[in-house]
């Protein structure tokens, strides 16, 4: 018994070790290549300087303030887009008449790249937070909306019959059938929405902001401070990773009924 089990354990810890070591090796290689002038340090500043600079900006409060404002914009935009996306999506999914009325509008506006709307948002909402939040909101809205509608439409019709037979009110259809039934798809939409939010926040802050991680990346390009730019890139990567992790754990908590086999 111990033999095969031990082998599995060995494999797991070996794989984990490799997955920790390989990025470290890559960083070491990078450092070495720059030191030996095989890589141009102006484009690829060595990881040791980036880490040093990171510490500097962390302590003087520059990074925390950029991170805070970017997070605020992403989460506000996400909420502003996802909440109406879910509500309108459930309504379109439940009522074929409303779906028929709104589907052409959605189909026509969805393909517009949301970034292309940023100038319009700047004109409407001005240079303040609202324009950034609105742009991100639009990006999330459509993804959440479309996935929610699909989620409701794909709910087995038998469950609607059950609700009707047991005397469900309109509100009951929303809360006991459409919302829980579409929840897995709503999560799909939210994950896609968060991905798009990261894209939009960087672009919006490069064009129309005086702070945030996108602004950090853009100004470091203009003054040619590439350590700062790499810090911005790494921060974005971390955000993407933690947002996805967060949504995944939230999903496990709110969908405990999900059949692991399906």
């Amino acid at each position, binding site marked *: 018994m111990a033999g095969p089990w031990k082998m599995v354990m060995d494999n797991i810890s070996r794989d984990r070790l490799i997955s920790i070591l390989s990025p470290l090796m890559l960083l070491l290689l990078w450092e070495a290549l720059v030191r030996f002038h095989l890589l141009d340090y102006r484009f690829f500043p060595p990881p040791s300087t980036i880490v040093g600079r990171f510490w500097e900006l962390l302590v003087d409060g520059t990074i925390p303030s950029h991170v805070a404002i970017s997070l605020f914009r992403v989460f506000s935009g996400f909420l502003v887009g996802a909440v109406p996306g879910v509500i309108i999506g459930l309504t379109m999914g439940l009522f074929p008449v409303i779906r028929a009325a709104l589907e052409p509008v959605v189909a026509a506006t969805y393909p517009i790249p949301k970034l292309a709307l940023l100038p319009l948002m700047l004109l409407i909402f001005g240079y303040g937070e609202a324009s950034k939040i609105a742009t991100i909101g639009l990006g999330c809205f459509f993804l959440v909306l479309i996935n929610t509608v699909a989620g409701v439409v794909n709910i087995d019709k*038998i469950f609607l019959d059950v609700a009707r037979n047991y*005397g*469900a009110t309109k509100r009951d259809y929303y809360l006991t059938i459409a919302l829980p039934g579409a929840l897995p798809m709503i999560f799909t939409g939210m994950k896609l929405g968060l991905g798009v939010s990261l894209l939009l926040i960087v672009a919006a802050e490069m064009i129309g902001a005086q702070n945030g991680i996108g602004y950090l990346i853009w100004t470091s390009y203009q003054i040619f401070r590439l350590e700062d730019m790499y810090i911005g890139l790494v921060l974005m990567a971390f955000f993407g990773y933690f947002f996805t992790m967060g949504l995944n754990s939230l999903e496990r908590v709110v969908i405990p*009924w999900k059949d692991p086999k399906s």
Partner: protein
Amino acid sequence: MEGPKIVVRGLSKVFGTGDKAVLALDDVSFTVPKGQFLCILGPSGCGKTTLLRILAGLEKKTGGHLVLHHENPAQPLNSMVFQEYSLLPWLTVLDNVAYGLRMRGIPPREREARARGFIDKVGLGEFARSYPHQLSGGMKQRVSVARAFVNDPEILLMDEPFASLDEQNKILLQQELLRIWEGTNKTVVYVTHSIDEALYLGDRILLMTARPGRIKRDIEVSFPRPRDFKELKTNPRFAALFAEVWGALKEEVLGTTLKERPPRLAGT
């Protein structure tokens, strides 16, 4: 038995229009007295589900008349046990069983107590917190039966609830159903394609023709209650009634498989 609970007169149902129109029910008439356990027996595709869904108000009738007597407005008129698995996957067994009570605005504590009572009655006490995907087919249908009964409707509509179960489970659930139903004075319309089941459960059997569904025979099943499945199977009157029903049903089954009735409405 008291006055009629259900009156159906000349009921018809057409699905679709024009070339694609299908006549599913044609001139169906019958009356169900209060408290009767009525079985509707017919070959598959004859319109049994359609008839039940019209009784439940889930489907519109095309023609004819239909009256369900609702005596007590505080009590729901009907609750249905569906043919397919119909438990809401996102609710626990307890919440599924309490669903009807929740829709009726009964406070959480009371509905939970009542739901637990019925979950125990169908022998699933320890699964109250499980989700449907963790249950076997037989357990799911037990929960469906409990969900309908706990709602305390005047009429129970049951659409082949045990058809997909293995023989042993089927007999067990039929026994449980009779045990729960006896003494409730609830009117039951129970759809099945099994002669055994109809004879064991019903006070009366309505035999339907193959599509379009019509009432072919109206057969009284007067075995005394409570009924014992083993005893009934060895009763010569059971055998005689079985032969009679099978004789009539066979014509319908053969009719569909050999002659292949035209599936469309003549002249439309």
